[in-house]
């Protein structure tokens, strides 16, 4: 029995290391300076702290703007994905109406679409609309990607709240809107926040559409991929560092909700 436990924990730790080591290397390289990136042989720890790569990174023209754009695009994506998704999710969770199943299937169906199939025709449309190469173009595509998620996850959430809670509020003098904001939303708040974080990560990490839809107004991912054949490795590493750190933090916050957010894929 003892031997078996060692085996299981050994395996568990092995898989943990497989996940953590590459991230560890990224962090070590990011704070060890340019020379360490090209050093041979490599040192497996931070020999001396050197922030010069960060300074260089932010001195490159377009980087600050790209980072700012990434934050802005991801935040706006959250606003739209939640703002458009919450009412729809509520309708799915609380009403029976003609076309409900069709709507649900159409939403599930969107998952089968490659981003490419969205981004290409939208480029043409956005040029006509005059919003090509603006953050709005990217926000729209990212919202289109995150919205189905937001709708399905939230409708599951709302469904898990007993409808009597809202009914009790209606009888105690609330309108439906008041009941939603006083009862439903506070109860679901942690999970809605987790959904919002997921929408943020989807947008923050998206490369293809952001790269296709922008020329000057790059997001961080679009900026990095458009420079990838010309930029030096240490620059790419610093870029990755700034891509990864916020999401590490976010995944930590939503760790409790991962299953309720992804369990949905079982349906």
């Amino acid at each position, binding site marked *: 029995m003892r031997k078996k436990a060692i085996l299981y924990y050994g395996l568990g730790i092995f898989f943990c290391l497989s996940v953590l080591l590459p991230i560890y290397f990224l962090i070590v390289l990011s704070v060890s300076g340019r020379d360490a990136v090209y050093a041979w042989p490599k040192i497996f720890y931070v020999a001396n702290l050197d922030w010069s790569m960060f300074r260089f990174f932010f001195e490159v023209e377009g980087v600050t703007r790209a980072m700012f754009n990434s934050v802005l695009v991801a935040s706006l994506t959250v606003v739209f994905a939640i703002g458009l998704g919450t009412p729809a999710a509520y309708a799915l969770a609380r009403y029976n109406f003609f076309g409900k199943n069709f709507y649900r299937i159409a939403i599930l169906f969107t998952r089968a679409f490659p981003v490419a199939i969205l981004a290409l025709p939208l480029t043409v449309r956005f040029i006509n609309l005059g919003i090509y190469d603006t953050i709005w173009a990217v926000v729209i595509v990212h919202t289109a990607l995150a919205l189905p998620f937001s709708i399905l996850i939230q409708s599951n959430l709302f469904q898990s709240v*007993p409808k*009597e*809670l809202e*009914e*009790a*509020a*209606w*009888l*105690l*003098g*609330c*309108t439906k809107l*008041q009941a939603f904001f006083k*009862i439903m939303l*506070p*109860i679901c708040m942690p999970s809605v926040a987790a959904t919002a974080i997921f929408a943020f990560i989807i947008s923050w990490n998206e490369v293809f559409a952001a790269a296709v839809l922008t020329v000057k107004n790059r997001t961080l991912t679009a900026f990095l991929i458009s420079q990838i054949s010309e930029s030096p490795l240490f620059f790419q590493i610093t870029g990755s560092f700034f891509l990864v750190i916020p999401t590490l933090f976010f995944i930590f916050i939503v760790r409790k909700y991962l299953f309720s957010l992804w369990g949905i894929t079982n349906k």
Partner: protein
Amino acid sequence: MATIHIEDVSKNFGTFHALKNIFLSAEDKEFTALLGPSGSGKTTLLRTVAGLEQASSGRISIGAMRVDNLAPKDRHLAMVFQNYAVFPHMTVADNISFGLKTKGALKEYIAEHTQRTAALLHIEDVLHKYPNKLSGGQRQRVSVARALAVQPQVLLMDEPLSNLDALLRLEMRSELKALLKKSETTTLYVTHDQIEAMSMADKIAVMNNGEIMQYGPPEEIYFKPKHEFVARFIGSPPMNLFTVQTLKTVNKKTFAVINNDIAFVIEASLKTKIQENFDACGVLVGIRPEQLSFKGSASHAKTFADASTIQSEVLTIEQLGSNTLLVLKSNEILFRVMEKYGIKIDLNDRVTFGYQPNQLSWFGKDSGMHIEA
């Protein structure tokens, strides 16, 4: 405080008729129980009064005000739900004061009234706790307090005691009854538990398949069922019902013959009505198990001369504490008798039971309707 008038209310879910032409009038301060098996429409009726369901047709008035087109919030009623529906993200105090706050009461009034209502339900010690720290019974009290705090004209309760364990249910039943009497609120109370309905209600509406089968005081429901369904549904064990095979007149008395051993005397006043029904579609006769009384063992064959008795063999004997339940068999017909404890009787004995002819209930066999003089 107000009356409730339900007039000709129907409710359809697609092709399913959940409520069929319901009429019900509850007096001010009256406690009405809606009693029926699951799926009988009692909860739908309650929810329709609350405005949580829309009636397909008909009118509902509370006091002088017609409410069927009003939103739930404008109907001046409160509801206690089966699962309590206590708001999990609010303290007990916030739960109780929720209705007063949304209605914009004064701060001092809210604080004082919350305290008073909590005291009424003995939950003043947990006012600052969250519901997940409470027991089921306490949560139940919070949900009643929350409903009473708004001093509703009408209180609706949907199986409020069904999620409590047996002992707590008993305790809460009497407490609730006293509380509602004191608060003088007109109450509609949904339950599938006939003892609950019998012990608490001023009037009972027995429902089945979306219809009210009988509406009246508990004693009437129990002793004078207006319909075969009510006879079968109320009482534990329920009423014995026999199918009448023939009608036979001996010595100027008319008997409803069930088989060779069992025949019931028909009261003179009912004779023609029963004859008419029998000719049309058959007749059922019913008597409650406790209305049959042990008359001793029977050695001789039954004759029609001795009226008001029936004979049969003892199939099983169950001791239920203060009572003894007998299942009796006569040819292929089984029926039950409830006797006091201590009756001297053995399995397979052939015994005689007596009854009062005026305690018999007669029903048309197809219509199920009670036959009256």
